[in-house]
């Protein structure tokens, strides 16, 4: 059974700090790893990482996939209060259509 573990469970930082969120996974026939931001109910898509695209960047957010270590990190630089949310990591195997999610990292950015 596919498994995703995220750390830390929660994190409080000051505005302007840089944070790194971690995701490790066990999946048969890895296809992709996705990061989502969840502020209220709807998870918002951030990045999809695959064997052919192991590093993605968008503004202050970036993510790297380490297929050897079966893990990924999500970096947020110069954090803002609007970055406060739960960040979800999910993996998809080549044989399944579903996403298997971790329990998320709750990030709180304070002034």
């Amino acid at each position, binding site marked *: 059974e596919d498994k*995703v573990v995220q750390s830390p469970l929660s994190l409080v930082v000051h505005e302007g700090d840089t944070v790194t969120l971690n995701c490790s996974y066990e999946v048969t026939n890895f*296809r*992709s790893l*996705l990061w*989502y931001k969840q502020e*209220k*109910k*709807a*998870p*918002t*898509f951030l990045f*999809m990482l695959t064997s052919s695209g192991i590093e993605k960047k968008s503004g202050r957010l970036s993510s790297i996939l380490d297929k050897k270590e079966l893990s990924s990190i999500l970096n947020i630089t110069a954090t803002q209060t609007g970055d406060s949310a739960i960040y*979800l990591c*999910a993996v*998809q195997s*080549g044989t*399944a*259509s*579903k*996403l*298997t*999610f*971790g*329990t*998320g990292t709750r990030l709180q950015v304070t002034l």
Partner: protein
Amino acid sequence: GAGVSQSPSNKVTEKGKDVELRCDPISGHTALYWYRQSLGQGLEFLIYFQGNSAPDKSGLPSDRFSAERTGGSVSTLTIQRTQQEDSAVYLCASSTQRGETQYFGPGTRLLVL
């Protein structure tokens, strides 16, 4: 452009009642997924549709749960004889096809009293 929409946004029901939750996927998306998120838990897969057929129903927790999709578009998740443990946020997602990025709707928060 329109994203995934779900209705109702909130539903309060009494134990033992049936409920129907609706999902309108992004136009043209052939794949549709239902997940649920219980308090403090990660998202849990329920069912996947490709077109109107459901090749993966492995996440449905009991036979009280069923779902259908018509016209390759709208999907309805039905929970019969609701129990308190069914209380959760039910999220729908769609993608252009299997394996592509899944985009989520705003969810339906279900509370069973």
